[in-house]
């Protein structure tokens, strides 16, 4: 037998409040995000055949920085709201998660993305479709 994770928060609910905190709000939040994706698709579906614009130079750097910083803030929000506020995790868990998230985002993802993009641009690794 193998374990996928530690003891799951809320696995032994003591009342309705626990069910709401650990089950209802997370599932409803995930559903709301999915509905947001579908609404976004619906509003832009007329333009989905439009060719993608790939920023270059300084605009590419700004776009990457915006995505990484904004995404990291979303990650922080998830940790603080769902693990700390609703999940009842200890403050030490919070600081550990934020450190691990920083390592993942800025120490692994960004260098890997930059390295793979560089290889793709040099033509040594085909990761994107080339337009003819």
């Amino acid at each position: 037998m193998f374990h996928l994770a530690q003891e799951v928060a809320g696995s032994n609910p003591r009342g309705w409040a626990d069910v709401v905190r650990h089950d209802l709000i997370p599932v409803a939040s995930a559903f709301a995000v999915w509905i947001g994706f579908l609404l976004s698709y619906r509003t832009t579906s007329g333009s989905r055949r439009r060719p993608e614009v790939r920023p270059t130079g300084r605009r590419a750097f700004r776009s990457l920085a915006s995505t990484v910083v904004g995404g990291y803030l979303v990650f922080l929000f998830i940790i603080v709201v769902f693990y700390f506020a609703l999940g009842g995790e200890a403050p030490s868990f919070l600081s550990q998660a934020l450190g691990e998230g920083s390592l993942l985002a800025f120490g692994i993802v960004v260098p890997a993305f930059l390295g793979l993009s560089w290889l793709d641009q040099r033509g040594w690794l085909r990761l994107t479709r080339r337009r003819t």
Partner: protein
Amino acid sequence: MIGLVGWGIVVGGVLGYQGFCLLDNGDRWPALSDILRDVMRYPAGRWVLFGLWLWFGWHLFVRGWKFFLRA
């Protein structure tokens, strides 16, 4: 065990839907990749997707580990 079966059904359903949409020539059923591509047109969409991706990777592979060794 029931959790693994549940997640297997969910992931199988998602992959099956994506495969069906990619094989279907019409626009009636949008593929998940089409939906995510549209979401990524907006900065806020990119932030949410990257944040969820970070959380997913952290939740599955990093949480509770100590320097690549299980705590």
